[in-house]
């Protein structure tokens, strides 16, 4: 009894803390400086894209436009010249969509199923197969470029949309399969056994048990594939052919076309437009992305 009274006499609740401690001040200062450092180029791009050429030539690079206009954005999208054609970067945008969507879907579909097979249905040389796959993800692209030119020519699809889609799909497979295999291997083995005892088939286990549990890893791989393929320049310029050039290639052509003075405002607008897709994806799915990466580490 005496004990309880002494305990209740003590202050309760969390220990009060001052709002600003010096450690916290240091952390915030560093974070703010870093954020400004990385945001500065974006800021300059945005204000430059809203200026007219004369304003850019005459003014200070850090000062926003006195008369902001979206004319440069309109021109970048609709009528900027990429070499011979002057149809703007929208052509590249739609080309990029046509390349990215099928490559992402096909590579993730194939990778998730092979990852599932490797993790749960071991076959005779599955370990060796997995090792080869791993090695595949370490081979530099550059050594494959010319052989693939020959292969696609032999298949009769060189310089077409299918060629670039095929290349993106295949190059995405090793790392995607690795990602899925490790994720599925981290799921409790007993779940797989329970589904087998319940009589579920290979596909039923995959679609009805595993896929619903794998939203985080699908999110991660969609992000990796979409941003990777969207940002690609090399495969697009080599295999797609001029009519199918993706947005990145078109952007380069706009920025590097040397007719008259440089239209910095159009260049900036086109660049932001190109970067907008991966940026949007990061913003929307950032939460899931982090969750997916952490998913293997700590079991939910």
């Amino acid at each position, binding site marked *: 009894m005496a004990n309880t009274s002494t305990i209740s006499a003590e202050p309760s609740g969390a220990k009060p803390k001052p709002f600003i401690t010096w450690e916290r001040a240091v952390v915030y200062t560093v974070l703010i400086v870093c954020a400004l450092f990385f945001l500065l180029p974006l800021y300059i791009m945005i204000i430059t894209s809203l200026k007219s050429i004369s304003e850019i030539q005459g003014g200070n690079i850090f000062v926003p436009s006195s008369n902001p206009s979206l004319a440069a954005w309109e021109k970048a999208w609709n009528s900027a010249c990429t070499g011979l054609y002057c149809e703007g970067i929208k052509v590249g945008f739609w080309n990029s969509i046509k390349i990215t969507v099928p490559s992402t879907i096909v590579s993730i579909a194939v990778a998730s199923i092979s990852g599932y097979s490797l993790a749960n249905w071991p076959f005779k040389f599955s370990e060796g197969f997995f090792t080869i796959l791993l090695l595949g993800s370490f081979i530099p692209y550059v050594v494959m470029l010319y052989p693939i030119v020959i292969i696609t020519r032999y298949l009769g699809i060189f310089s077409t949309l299918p060629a670039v889609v095929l290349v993106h799909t295949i190059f995405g497979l090793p790392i995607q399969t690795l990602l899925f295999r490790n994720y599925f291997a981290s799921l*409790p083995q*007993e*779940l797989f*056994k*329970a*589904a*087998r*005892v*319940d*009589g*579920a*088939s290979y596909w*039923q286990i995959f679609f*009805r*048990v595993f896929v*619903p*549990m794998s939203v985080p890893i699908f999110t991660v791989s969609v992000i990796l594939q979409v941003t990777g393929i969207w940002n690609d320049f090399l495969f697009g310029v080599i295999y797609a052919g001029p009519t199918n050039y993706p947005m990145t290639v078109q952007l380069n052509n706009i920025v590097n076309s040397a007719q008259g003075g440089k239209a910095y405002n159009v260049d900036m607008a086109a660049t932001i437009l190109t970067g907008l897709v991966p940026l949007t994806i990061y913003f929307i799915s950032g939460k899931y992305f982090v969750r997916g990466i952490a998913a293997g580490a700590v079991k*939910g």
Partner: protein
Amino acid sequence: MSYSVSVKNLTLKFGAAEVLKNLNLDVEEGEFIVLLGPSGCGKSTLLNCLAGLLELSEGQIHIKGKNVTWAEPSERGIGMVFQSYALYPQMTVRGNLSFGLKIAGLPKADIEARVQRASEILQIGPYLDRKPGALSGGQRQRVAIGRALVRDVDVFLFDEPLSNLDAKLRSELRVELKRLHNRLQNTMIYVTHDQIEALTLADRIAIMRGGIIQQLAPPQEVYNRPVNLFVAGFIGSPAMNFLKGAVVDGGKAFQVGNTKVSLEGYDGGTNIERPKAILGLRPEHLLIQPEAEAGMTIPAQVELDEPMGADSLVWLVAEGHQLSVRVPVENRPKPGATVHLKVEIHKASVFDAESEQRI
């Protein structure tokens, strides 16, 4: 006579390692068999073989008289309950219970009736529309049992189903499992490393070591007449006392140190002398008394005692061996005292020190 489950000459190899060695096991209809053994003895592996989740290297498995050696898990008439529950996290309890039935293509009304029956038996009705994440460990394990129950199978397989639960819940569910078995009268095969579960639940216990069944017998038999030293040491808590000595006098007495204990009344054949033998005595088969009796007692020094509520475990040193004796708390001797231990020889076990087999 047709057995419910019959394992014939089963051998399983992982690479070069033989995990199960030429194993035979016949389980009667409605029997509760517990596979008991230390980690790595092959008990879970055997269960996975029965379920059809591992392919055998050699041998056959028959369930209900049908050879199911190469049958798919779902075609064997078994239901399985796992240690980690293994419930499908994205489905509700109802979804978990009906998943296998839907796959089997049962009519909706039939599925509903079976789920209803299982939820009544296991008292999980109130949580049918919850997801496993919103259930406690005990509730989850009930659902896992329910998933086996709805499949209306001949044989239940349990893979350490209570090991993830806390002690109180474990003993509650243990009783429930026994009740369930009494009610359903199904064949149940149950893997555990917990000897209390084995002793309380089993009709027969199969004690395994190194991929071999050491003894297959009812719990009392395993406890009272262990076939070898391993079984004797593994079963029983506190563990059996072992006294190293020799069988002398033409098999009529056991010599330990300077003391001779008569083997008259011993439950086994000891009419041969053995220079090296081991006398196994359970802590409750020794009586502490103040005075010596020739051929019946061993002198001992009390070291310390551990009161455990109703009775007390007294640790003594006798002829160079450390022994424990279970005595009622009020009769416990003082540490340091010299006492005499009366041996209840008809409950003892004598082992050959070389072969480690019971004599």
